[in-house]
């Protein structure tokens, strides 16, 4: 009876959220968002895994072997691609913020200017 992956997923989410709320640098904050997102990888991985299952690649193994769930693995692949898209965009925004305001500290970004 192993519930460790669920605990790890919850822990990564919470610690990432703490990082986001207490961050003093937007680029540090973006990497904390990445940690939050990785909690979903751990959860999906735990859901797709099967005891005694093989990887879902049917080369050199009998076609009816018991394999882990490929559907959630495809979801994780999507998840990772979305992470790189989101991070690239957020980093671009952080560079823009620094260009406009000369600081990356969210606490000092109090003045809103159009």
């Amino acid at each position: 009876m192993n519930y460790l992956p669920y605990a790890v997923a919850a822990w990564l989410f919470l610690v990432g959220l703490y990082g986001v709320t207490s961050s003093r640098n937007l680029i540090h904050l973006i990497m904390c968002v990445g940690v939050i997102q990785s909690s979903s990888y751990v959860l999906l991985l735990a859901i797709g895994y099967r005891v005694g299952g093989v990887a879902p690649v049917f080369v050199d193994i009998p076609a009816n072997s018991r394999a882990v769930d490929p559907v959630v693995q495809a979801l994780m692949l999507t998840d990772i691609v979305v992470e790189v898209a989101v991070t690239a965009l957020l980093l671009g925004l952080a560079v823009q913020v620094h260009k406009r305001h000369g600081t990356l500290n969210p606490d000092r970004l109090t003045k809103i200017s159009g």
Partner: protein
Amino acid sequence: MTRKVRRVFILISAAALAWVFFLAYRPLPPLGFVHSQYGDLVNAITVPERHITDAVSAVNFDVRAFDTLGEEFILFTSVMGVLVLMRRQSDEPAGHHEDKAPGRTVPPASDAVRVTALLLVAPAMLFGLYIVVHGQVSPGGGFQGGVILASAPVLVYLCSEYAEFRRVLSMRLAEVSEAAGAATYILMGLVSLGLGGMFLENLLPLGRSGTLTSGGMVPFIDVGVGLEVGGGLSLALLAYLEELVEEKEQ
């Protein structure tokens, strides 16, 4: 609100959230005992009916190919966003910083870095292409191979002077590659419409499992995605590199 007050609020809400997580995860079965009928179904049909030995590729590019089209365009849009954000605005001075101060030179990359990068360019390209075209046979596919392909321009940047970097790489080529890759995916969907099926229905001959030509449309889609991801990610990285490179030139 001071940082201290804020921290207290964060910790209280985090504790509440942890309790919610506990309630949500408690009904789940332990690791390794979750049972999904869809997973079993895909594993059962992937080799006999789709002739694809990598079940994850079968899900991504055949069973739910339409979803992956959307996923690909998320990346496409985000690359466009990065390019717009990184463009130099008209009201912005052309760059000023300490590296440009008189009497200061930017140190060149060390010979060890340059030789290593030079030796890695060709293997990285080859490995990327291998991963792209073997998507339906072994782990890998367009997304993974595309990312590996996008590492090649960075290696060229590491091992070359600015003039060579400009000669070898062009933004234009990366743009064309990205657009052509995205178009390939949609064209494959239109091909199946033309053959009398549904959008992205796999109607091409399925070939022999375990070979490069197996899986019908899947290898074509894989190559398209590989071009799109490779081109798109190169564009994003080049957009970040662009201004740094301009400095190096002087």
